[in-house]
């Protein structure tokens, strides 16, 4: 899945860089560093970062934050449901880590056009790693002959090393809760799986 950097256009890389900036913002706020931007017609119209620790709501992933911002913005402009649905079908998401199963399902519900992601998420990933919610072909949702699920194009491995190194630094900086094996206290670390996390933990730092 990981492709060399120069396979992607400079525009793709520029938007992914914006997503990385959001992830850094999350890191500064002691959140698991994942960030994203939503792009329509070559313009970043919304951004989001992980806010699970702050909200104590483990579903407040970067994608959900960006989607909420966008929905509110469009509704304030007075757009109708159909207009908003049409807008989503023109949008592209750039996210530093593969959307989890929940976010991938949400993106399918909204009918987003395309997703670019950084590192894969082999614990929760909903765009190929665990489930393939982006692929409408494998989508078994058929009701009365009408396929119901919406697929979207998915491209992984964009600036994956940057995304991973951010996640890694989250662990190395000594996260405030430092409770990886414990399920009792406040720890939101397993929100995504860091590639090679096991190796990372085994390495004495």
């Amino acid at each position: 899945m990981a492709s060399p950097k120069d396979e992607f256009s400079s525009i793709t890389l520029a938007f992914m860089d914006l997503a990385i900036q959001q992830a850094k913002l999350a890191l500064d706020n002691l959140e698991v560093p994942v960030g994203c931007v939503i792009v329509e017609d070559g313009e970043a119209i919304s951004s989001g970062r992980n806010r699970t620790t702050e909200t104590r709501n483990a579903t407040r992933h970067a994608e959900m934050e960006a989607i909420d911002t966008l929905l509110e913005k469009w509704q304030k402009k007075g757009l109708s449901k159909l207009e908003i649905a049409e807008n989503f079908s023109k949008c592209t998401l750039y996210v530093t880590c593969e959307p989890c199963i929940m976010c991938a399902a949400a993106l399918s519900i909204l009918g987003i056009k395309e997703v670019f992601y950084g590192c894969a998420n082999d614990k929760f990933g909903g765009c190929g790693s665990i489930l393939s919610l982006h692929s409408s072909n494998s989508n078994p949702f058929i009701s009365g002959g009408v396929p119901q699920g919406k697929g979207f194009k998915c491209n992984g491995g964009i600036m994956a090393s940057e995304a991973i190194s951010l996640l890694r630094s989250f662990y190395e900086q000594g996260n405030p809760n430092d409770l990886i094996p414990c399920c009792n206290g406040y720890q939101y670390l397993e929100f995504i799986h860091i590639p090679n996390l096991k190796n990372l933990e085994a390495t004495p730092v």
Partner: protein
Amino acid sequence: MMKLYRLLEHSRNQLSRKPLNWKGGDVRDVLSLHALSYSTAGQKFDTAGSTAGKIFAPYTIFKGKAALSVTPLLPTFTKLESGNLVVDRRGSMMLKFLPAIGERKYDNERRQIFCLSATEVGSLISLGADDSCEFFHDPSMLSSNAGQVRKSLSIKPNGNGSGYFVSLTVVNNIQKTKDNLSVPVTNAEFAVMKTACSWVSESPALNPTSEVRTKGLLLACLELTVPNNMDAWQIIHVPEKPPIPPDQQPTVDVFASVIEPKLANTLVRSLNKIAPMEDFRHVKRVKKKYVEGKTQLSVILCLACENGDQCRIPQGVQELINSYQLSAFVTKVCKYAASSKEEWEEQCKLWPTSYHPHTYSIDGITGFSEEDSQSVFSFMNSAIQLAKSGVGSVVNAAVIVDPSAKLVIASACDQIRSWHTPTDEFILETSSSKQPEAFASRTDSNGVISCKTICSDGFSGDSKRLYTGVSCLHPWQWAEQQTHMSSCYWHPLRHAAIVAIETSAARDIHLFPSSGDIQDKSVDMNSMQLSSTGSPAKRQKTNFTNVKGDGNLDTCCEGSHSLSDRPYLCTGYDIYLVWEPCTMCAMALVHQRIRRIFFAFPNPNAGALGSVYRLQGERSLNHHYAVFRVLMPEEILDAVETCQGQSTSTVTDSCGL
């Protein structure tokens, strides 16, 4: 002018005649004796017309300056034409304080009453030896007189460990009065009070129509209706794998060979290096068989290729075969580890495997006690009533419950069509925000708020079987649905489970407002303990004695959340959903660490707990909940019923009196 309260007088006489030793023996026995010796204080189901089978007597403590009596107030029910019952008044524990006006005489005219809700009773029961607690009530809450009368009940240790002071302060700004009644209570008397509370909480409430025993819910203030046809309900576990007959388990081909027993160690060691069976740890490498009284050993050499391709044995294995002159043959082993004893027994007929029953145990997988079943049915029923409470069509509803306390943590309906943007305060009554005009809220004479709504024409004929309003059933159809109120925001992802998670997270922040920093946690606990006397009732946390130091936190494991009162996400909580959740909601519940999911109806188009996907069986996920389906007739969605306005538990905390 000064009347003696007859019942109290009566109680005292009775008590004095009983040779009771309050300081020793089994308090419970004493108590039931106490309770059974009276027949005057029986409670009635007001419209059912029959007396409950149990009779409760007040327990009264007479002291020099005042008397304190504890009386359970049972919930009252109204029987509907459909045969169902609705709760009119929630149950509570009434504390009555009477000031003394002379030797052994108490003034009933100047009595002061304080009714403890179920949650407050819980605080009282769990009160440790050196703990104190304080509750505040406003009997005219939600009326124009709100804030004018302020009652506070405090229970404080008396300092020398021999008992407590139970004090009630009533400040009435309307009549410009202030009463302070304090009763010293010995440890023995306090033990009786606590046991009385526990005992009442546990005693069965008889449903006069179907004799359903709703143990533990008597005082639970959960606004539950008890349908009379629950006999037909059933709970079934939805397993991690689709059920397959044990003798039809998927298999893979392997190369194996009979070996000399004395070579077994050497060969297995080499094979584990050359051809490890990483994904088949459940398969034993060696098979032992008795042939003509002699032990015959066979060993798995390596996996054989699938699809009948020309298989090639790896070089290293081939060398072993050559040097030990083994004769390889192809045989079958089971692909997946057995999930039941039956499966395991079948597997071993092919090739021996190991079987590890679940290392984690979640209550209910092995069955529910009658008490637990009734509790599950009641919560499921409240979710169903909530789903039907909306103005248009039926929607999905979610109720998050702390099963250890039988406490509703959060409840919500689908909010994809209209949604009031939250203000700074979190929305407690997520459901009622959707259908304000359908609710007629009234405050009865006890200051208990009850809501009723009539769902007479809730469902149009067309939507009856499609349930187009249920978000999880039709997640992709949001754009086609009409918005009810143009002024409201709508949100295609605000499915019931997502909203309920949001509400429970907001509750967590509200109840435990400190930062999530673990270093601050112990400090935080201490400061909360110190300030506990001045905080509102719902912040009462009395079992801090259980909190261990930080050092213990990293040794604890999943399920031990009771170590601390502060919940970690929804660890240990259950969620009741009317429909099987879609993929988004099911994964959100994984993230939020829900312990058990109960749903009533499957979701063939988009369900992720068995219908389309089966997230409870995705082993790569970091959390696994147990999933149950509550079987019931689908007609329950059609029946025209009076249903209760649903609210979250925090509302029950503030019921005045």
